[in-house]
């Protein structure tokens, strides 16, 4: 626990040490703020001012960056900051009631700091523990999995007794890998350095040719050809190139990168090193989502081991001139930073707003340098291609979607966890393997992906059929698909970066409509408005987040319309506000409770 939590200022020595460690670089702003907050609990304005002065930034620039990230606080949030993961899978496992229970036991309102300044309890976007939820995050660092009423009661007791998080029961923090089906990536790992040695033996040109031969496409969702991206970067003029691994796994329902980073970290770093060899990079960065902060120390240990064995650093594997190292940047809670240009902005210490493209990162990326950004899983794959050849990889899966794909399976099934299959696998096959029964729908690829109903379970996972970034959330017939979509609508509104009009206002308007329907005040007109918003956002937004924000809505309205109509008060017009509710205060003051005081709904 932090001794100086409630103070107004950070110790001068702490601040100076921190700044010295980061070389007082403005690019390190988000890292500096994150680490300052770890020391101090929150970010007072006088501290922001000192950071600004030290980095040569304005106070407003620092304030602008701090205010962008959900995990940075410019007001006290308590000695304990408890965030319940708010993915639909957590809610299906009872997180809403558990959070209410914890708030009641601690005597705090959700999102509000208690008067004693001890604790605040709130919700956060999916923490990537859907296979062992409900989950929560404490002080933006530790995760507690498999919550139940007993755990919540004990947790309340420990917080009230001011017991430091480090002394809480160790089994609470246990994160299971739950690997249910392994293929190439989750199978037996090769020895660290083996793939790199194979790549060096092939030479950079031939290795790039192998990647292109493999038809490997990016695993982050968009499916851009990896070999082509690397070739573009390699050809871009400029001194110094950068390899970035996107481990900002924010798509709700996705947790396969968590498992890859826990179990196959060597393969991830080896893939990055291999990429550096091909594109000619000396610098590597891994953007670790803030929710995975607990993975930082294990990952740093792997990096150090690789340096010690000459798999990183100067003259890798004894090859003169092959110098490459990797640093880890920890995110601070922003889904949009999974978009590669936002991720680069964030790496540069700024607000994670998507850039105008072109130019693309391969030409103009981190600090203007040619940069490749690839997903954790993509980097894992390239090591296997180095060892076994592009033709071998291209022979797995389908002609347009080569290789295997790792899925994060959660929701209504007996065996949630990580499943790896070759591309081309039927949805129904995955449902059978995970023990799903009476399945109504599957959300593939997370909220920005596609919602499939039972008649589509014969479709296949592939870029040309059902593309996915890795989430596979199962809903049985007891679930209200309207509520599922409403949860996703809240997620997108919460995570909109706020830059462009259609996403900033559109996601908020969608939430208003969905909440209105949920409250029983909706009409068919509201559904028409939702369609209209969907069409606009698909056409007009600045980036992919906004463009896909209405996907779950559109899919569920089209495929599960009765779920919506159950919430309609009337199939015809219903006013935007409830006049009786608006007049209730006046009626209370005047003591009018007679039938004549009401429009049509006397209590």
């Amino acid at each position, binding site marked *: 626990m932090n001794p100086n939590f409630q103070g107004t200022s950070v110790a001068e020595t702490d601040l100076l040490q921190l700044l010295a460690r980061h070389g007082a670089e403005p690019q390190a702003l988000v890292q500096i703020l994150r680490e300052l907050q770890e020391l101090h609990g929150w970010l007072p304005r006088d501290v922001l001012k000192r950071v600004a002065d030290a980095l040569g930034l304005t106070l*407003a620039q620092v304030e602008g960056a701090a205010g*962008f990230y959900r995990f940075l606080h410019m007001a006290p949030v308590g000695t304990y900051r408890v965030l319940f993961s708010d993915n639909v899978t957590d809610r299906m496992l009872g997180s809403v009631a558990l959070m209410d229970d914890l708030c009641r036991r601690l005597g705090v309102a959700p999102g509000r700091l208690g008067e004693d300044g001890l604790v605040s309890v709130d919700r956060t976007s999916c923490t990537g523990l859907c296979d062992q939820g409900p989950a929560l995050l404490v002080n933006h660092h530790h995760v507690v999995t498999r919550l139940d009423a007993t755990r919540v009661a004990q947790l309340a007791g420990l917080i009230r007794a001011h017991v430091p998080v480090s002394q809480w029961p160790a089994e609470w923090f246990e994160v299971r890998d739950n690997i249910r089906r392994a293929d190439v990536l989750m199978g037996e790992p090769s020895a660290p350095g083996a793939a790199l040695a194979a790549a060096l033996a092939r030479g950079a040109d031939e290795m790039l040719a192998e990647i292109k031969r493999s038809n490997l496409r990016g695993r982050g969702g968009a499916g851009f050809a990896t070999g082509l991206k690397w070739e573009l970067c390699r050809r871009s003029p400029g001194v110094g190139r950068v390899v970035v691994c996107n481990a900002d796994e924010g798509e709700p329902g996705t947790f396969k990168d968590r498992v890859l980073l826990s179990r196959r970290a060597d393969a991830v770093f080896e893939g990055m090193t291999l990429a550096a060899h091909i594109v000619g990079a000396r610098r590597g960065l891994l953007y670790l989502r803030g929710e995975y902060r607990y993975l930082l120390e294990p990952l740093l240990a792997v990096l150090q081991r690789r340096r010690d064995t000459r798999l990183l650093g100067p003259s890798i594997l004894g090859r003169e001139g092959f110098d490459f190292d990797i640093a880890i940047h920890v995110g601070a809670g922003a889904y949009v930073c999974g978009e590669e240009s936002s991720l680069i902005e964030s790496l540069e210490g700024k607000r994670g707003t998507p850039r105008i493209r072109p130019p693309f990162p391969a030409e103009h990326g981190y600090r203007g340098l040619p940069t490749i950004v690839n997903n954790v899983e993509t980097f894992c794959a390239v090591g296997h291609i180095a060892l076994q050849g592009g033709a071998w990889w291209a022979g797995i899966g389908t002609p347009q979607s080569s290789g295997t794909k790792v899925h994060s399976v959660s929701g209504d099934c007996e065996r949630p966890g990580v499943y790896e299959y070759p591309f081309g696998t039927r949805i129904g096959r995955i449902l059978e393997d995970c023990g799903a029964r009476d399945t109504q729908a599957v959300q593939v690829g997370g909220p920005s992906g596609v919602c499939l109903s039972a008649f589509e379970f014969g479709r296949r996972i592939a870029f040309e059929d059902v593309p996915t970034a890795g989430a596979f959330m199962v809903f049985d017939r007891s679930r209200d698909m309207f509520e599922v979509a409403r949860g996703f609508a809240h997620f997108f509104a919460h995570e*909109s*970066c*706020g830059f*462009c*009009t259609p996403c900033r206002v559109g996601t908020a308007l969608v939430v208003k409509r969905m909440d209105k329907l949920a409250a029983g005040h909706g009409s068919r007109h509201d559904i028409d408005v939702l369609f209209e918003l969907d069409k606009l956002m698909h*056409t007009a937004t*600045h980036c992919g987040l906004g463009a896909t924000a209405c996907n779950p809505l559109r899919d569920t309205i089209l495929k599960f319309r009765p779920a919506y109509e159950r919430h309609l008060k009337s199939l015809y017009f219903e006013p935007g506000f409830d006049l009786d509710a608006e007049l209730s205060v006046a009626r209370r003051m005047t003591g009018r409770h007679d039938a004549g005081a009401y429009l049509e709904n006397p209590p």
Partner: protein
Amino acid sequence: MTDTADTTGPSFSLDGEDVAFNPGETVLRAATRAGRYIPHLCWHPDFAAHGSCRLCIVKVNGRAGAACTLRAAPGLDVQSNTEELNAHRKTLLQMLFVEGNHFCPSCEKSGNCLLQATAYEMGMEGPHFEEFYPDRPVDASHPDILLDLNRCILCELCVKASHDIDGKNVFEIGGHGIGTHLLVNSDSGRLADTAMTLTDRAASICPVGVILPKRRGFLIPIGERRFDTASVSEQANRGQS
């Protein structure tokens, strides 16, 4: 912008008519120079494109994009003045109106306001959506300049003008999502404690009624203001962007 492109140079098609462009120009810049109106709010010819308001959305070979960031290329078939895109523009305007607190009848900027003029241009007759009625501050601390954030549309033109031209960095953007807002760079967060003056470019760049000079209210009567005499598209056609 008064210079004209070489008539033998490259051109693209905008709603079926050729528009000449200089290499490297965007569709919106070339169109503006040619006196062709594409609705926009956050774009200004003196500054780099921002791309946030999305009013200048056009379709090129069926694909949507913002004309302010879209690089002109020979032979592009750009659709702008279509029923579909104008409907989208009207919705975007309605979004901006309900997001902030815009009461045109009592606003000093009425008649000089690009948001209001563009809404008239797109035939917007009402807000369509429910108003958000956000609680936003008015900063009257500065002796000469009023800052009414109720009307901010986050175009960032003041941020750019203060940074690029005035060299003062008075403004920044803070927050996220629907809570995104304009920040004033001073220890107190108030405009009075910045170096801003009335002669700054940032003091006159605001397309809406956020940054206003004090003690000049209604100096120009309603009816004689910029957009009272000619609509925003008529002015664009005359080369007044």
